[in-house]
Every structure is written in C-alpha cells, then in structure tokens.
C-alpha cells in the first residue's frame, strides 16, 4: 500500500472526584505530565481551515453541541487558547494535545498498515504514561479510555485520514464512499451497551459506538450534527493535487486486527476510486441504515438501495470483488486485506462468533455474555455498561481487552518491539520522519510545526521547511538527513531542489 494514512484518537478522561466542568484543566494537567521529549506550544494553526467544505464553500460557523456549549458558558477557564491546547509534537512525529477536553494522539503519517498499527498502539502507551505521571502528581485515580462515548449522550472521535488525488471528483468520492462507510461497521464496530439517542430497551447491545451520533449523510461538521461522510477540505498537502478523506464516523478499535481491516479496506476503496471504479448505487437513507444495522447485531443487516434491497455483507462484497479483480497480488499488505476482508464477510454470514478473537464488537459481546451467564444477570443490567467501559481501559492491568490479549484470546498483529520503536521513532518513509528528526535533534530551534510545514531557526534566520509536497516515500532523504552533521547541513538537504525528485524506488511503483 502506498498512501499517507493516520489515525487521531480522542481519549475519554476520568479523574477521581472531578467532573465535566474541570475536564479541560484535567486534560491540560495530564498533558503537562507527559514524560516524553517533545516540542511544546509550537503548533502552527495558520494553515488549518476546518470550515472549508469540499463542495466548494466555507461555512460561517461550525455547529456545537448545545449541552457542551452550556458547560463552557457556566464554567469558563482561565487559560489562553494556546495554553488550553497544550500542543506537543513528539520525537516520533506524532501530535499530542488537548482537543475539546480530550487528550488526543494523532499518529504520524504512515504508509504501511503495520507502521500505522504500531503507532496507534504507541499512542496508547504514551497516553498511559501521561496518566500514570499525572496520577502520581495529584494523588487521585486517573483513567483513560479509548472509546467514543460516555454512555450519557456525549461522544468524542476517532478519526482516520487518507490522502488521495484531488482529481477524484467530489461527487464520485462521496457517492462511492458513503455506502462503504455506512456498512463497514459490521467488522469495524467497537460494540456498545444500550442506545443513547431515542433509548430503546429492546436494544441491549449494538455494533457501533458512534452510530447513535450520526445526524446527516454528509456535512463539514465534527462537533455536532455529525455526518457519515465528512466534507472538510483540509488536505494538509498541496491543495491543487490532493484531498484528504477525513473519516469521522468510525469507532475506536482496541483490536489491532479490526483497525488494520478498517484502514486497509478503506484504503483499497480509495485505490479503486483513483483507478476509475465507482460502486454505482446509493443507499436510500444512510443514517437510518447505519443505525438500524448497528442496533440489530443479529439481524440480516438489510440495506435499501436504488438497485434494490441487499445485505450489508453483499454490499461490502461489491467493493471487495472490485478490489480483488484489480489489486490481487500487488503487494503483501494488499493481499492480506483482500484475504481477511473476504474471510470476515464469509464468517459474518455463516458463523460470526468465530470472529470473537478478531472483531471488537463480537469479542466484547462474548465477554458480556460470559459475565451475564455467570452472574445470572441480563445484558441490559446496568453493570454491563461498566464492563463495556472497562473493555476500553488502556491500562493493561485493568482493561478487559487487554485481559483477552493476555489470555491469548485476541489475535494481535504488531509486536512489542515495533510498539517500543514507534513510541520514539517515526516511520522512515513519510514526511513524519523529518518532523520527528527536528524534534529529536533541534527541539529548541523549532519555531513552529504542523503537518505540512516546519519553521526552524537555524542560527541567524528562520527557515521554512515545506513538507506539503513530500507525499511519496522519502526513505532516501531520511537517510541523508540522519547523516547530516549539523542543522545547516540538515536544512540545506531539505532545501535542495533534488530532495523531492529522488523518491525511493518503491514510491514509483
């Protein structure tokens, strides 16, 4: 696979004795306890434009959750915007900061799925270290949950980013991605006890954490009126050449397998689009369909389309078969995704319980069922919500997902060595390597940094390093940068006109 990828995860934060009114300050306190080397407070917001819509306009305002707005009005904080954001850029090229009262870890840009999984897991370890340091400092229990809901109606996101060519027409992109995103929850859902919108006691368990919060098929919003297809037009690369597909409808997966399959299949659908393929059907009501699939985990997952009614599994097979025809044999990661995608769809149809060692929503339900049978309670017992939450506890000593891994009940994909490596080091083949090297070697010279630009003070002058066109494999450039003897040589290498014209051979395949 050969596409820039990333995952941003907003973590749920619990601090003993504190409530939502103090959550911003607690998130800041936790981030200030980060024990890892970082460049702090230098994130450059000047290139960000979250109100710009792919449909060719910019909205005046982004919608906000009315309940959250009320908390903000009643409990103002005394920090500046910069202090509240508490931005960190780490030596691995990742961004760590406070996003709307949630500690957020945004992985560095990755190209290989295996790098992305290692960096996603590295984020859990980094946040856990922050939580432990903060807990020691304040003497109160601090817990972090990698999930998307507080079960009381507040949601927070796990977003995916995929760079793609701008030449893919917006209407084609949206019309082909929407049916895919509506139905991929059948393997990418994290599972949830209960329903938070329109409570329905007949739904003790659903597939997706996030589906209750979808309100529109597509829009530019992220805080409220959340869509299935987000239209934010912020490529973090050259605007005239690239789009960034910003997927906000997904769940936070604990399972490495589910994350890999989720990102791998989405990447293949984008490959199909860049290859000129389109799905050529649409779902009549994507929001209602997504919620009905999610709330009927044992159902047939029927989807009403303009071409008739079909199952979500068969709809996913349309994408799978097109990808098999075009991409089989392309590379090892592609072949893995194609093989596992097919296997999972077949098992979801014939014997979904066999996927309890791979998919979060099935693994979690099996855990809950085990407890319910043992303790003689039902799946809608209030204790089940606490178990659901505990599945997402990132502390290996307490989290239920981690208990499954510890007992050999969940398949894993990455290794401890790779995760430890990812905690400190960026992938060598993406522009994140340059960002990470700047933080490792020249932290005091970093004046500002973001996804596509770094400004370094190299002595007497500020030097602007443009990363926006470095979307290919840059391993050769990384090697040369690592061999640079000082900042002058480092900067000269980056400003050389040859730097981008010598992509690694694999990038040209």
């Amino acid at each position, binding site marked *: 696979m050969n596409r820039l990828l990333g995952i941003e995860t907003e973590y749920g934060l619990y601090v003993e004795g504190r409530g939502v009114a103090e959550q911003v300050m607690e998130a800041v306190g936790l981030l200030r306890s980060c024990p890892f080397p970082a460049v702090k407070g230098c994130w450059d917001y000047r290139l960000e434009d979250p109100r710009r819509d792919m449909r060719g306009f910019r909205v005046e305002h982004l919608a906000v959750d009315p309940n*959250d707005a009320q908390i903000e009005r009643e409990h103002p904080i005394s920090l500046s915007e910069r202090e509240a954001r508490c931005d960190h850029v780490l030596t691995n090229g990742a961004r760590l900061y406070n996003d*709307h009262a949630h500690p957020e870890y945004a992985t560095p840009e990755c190209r290989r799925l295996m790098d992305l999984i290692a960096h996603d897991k590295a984020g859990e370890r980094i946040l856990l270290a922050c939580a432990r340091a903060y807990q020691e400092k304040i003497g109160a229990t601090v817990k972090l949950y990698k999930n998307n*809901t507080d079960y009381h109606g507040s949601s927070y*996101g796990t977003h995916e980013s995929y760079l793609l060519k701008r030449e893919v027409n917006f209407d084609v992109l949206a019309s082909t991605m929407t049916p895919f995103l509506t139905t991929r929850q059948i393997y990418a859902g994290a599972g949830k006890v209960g329903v938070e919108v329109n409570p329905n006691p007949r739904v003790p368990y659903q597939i997706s954490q996030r589906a209750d919060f979808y309100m529109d098929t597509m829009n530019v919003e992220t805080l409220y009126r959340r869509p299935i297809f987000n239209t934010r037009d912020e490529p973090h690369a050259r605007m005239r050449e690239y789009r960034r597909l910003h997927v906000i409808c997904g769940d936070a997966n604990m399972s490495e397998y589910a994350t890999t399959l989720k990102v791998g299949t989405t990447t293949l659908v984008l490959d199909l689009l860049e290859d000129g393929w389109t799905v050529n059907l649409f779902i009549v009501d994507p929001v209602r369909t997504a919620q009905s699939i999610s709330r009927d985990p044992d159902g047939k997952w029927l989807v009403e389309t303009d071409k008739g009614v079909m199952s979500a599994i068969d709809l996913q097979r349309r994408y799978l078969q097109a990808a098999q025809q075009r991409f089989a044999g392309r590379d090892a990661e592609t072949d893995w995704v194609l093989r596992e995608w097919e296997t999972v769809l077949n098992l979801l149809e014939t014997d979904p319980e066999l996927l309890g060692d791979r998919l979060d929503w099935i693994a979690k339900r099996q855990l809950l069922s*085990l407890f319910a049978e043992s303790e003689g309670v039902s799946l809608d017992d209030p204790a089940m919500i*606490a*178990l659901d939450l505990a599945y997402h506890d990132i502390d290996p000593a307490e989290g239920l997902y981690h208990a499954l891994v510890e007992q*050999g009940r969940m398949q894993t*994909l990455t290794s401890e060595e790779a995760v430890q490596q990812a905690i400190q080091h960026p992938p060598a083949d993406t522009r994140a390597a340059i960002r990470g090297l700047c933080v490792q070697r020249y932290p005091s010279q970093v004046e500002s940094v973001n996804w596509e630009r770094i400004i370094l003070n190299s002595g007497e002058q500020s030097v602007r390093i443009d990363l926006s066109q470095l979307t290919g494999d840059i391993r050769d450039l990384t090697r040369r940068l690592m061999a640079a003897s000082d900042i002058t040589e480092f900067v000269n290498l980056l400003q050389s006109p040859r730097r981008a014209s010598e992509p690694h051979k694999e990038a040209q395949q």
Partner: protein
Amino acid sequence: MMTRAEERVRRPVPTEPLTRPGGDGDGPSKPDVKRPDTNELLKRMRRIDPEQARRYRQRSGQ
C-alpha cells in the same frame, strides 16, 4: 536514539508482513498457549466497579 532510528531505516522490509490469522512471521499471531478457562476473566470482570459507568461523564468532542 539515533542509532535505533538508523536500525529502523535499515531493517529489511518483510516480503510478507501480514499472514493468515494464526500464522507465523510478522503477521497476525495467536499466542501458542492452550486457552485457559474463563475464571481469570470473570475475576477481572468482578473487580470492575459497577458504579464507574455512572460516574463517567465526558465533554462532547469531535
């Protein structure tokens, strides 16, 4: 630190980074242990404070 990064750059790219579930190599792996009984899992679940979900309230995020 730089030495480790150098090792990473030089690490050969696996030709088969992902294999079938349960397979060997760098791909998905299921630890080669006999499935233990469920007592340990149940013990862990019984330790979970059932009140934690009631206490757990969050600001709305993105």
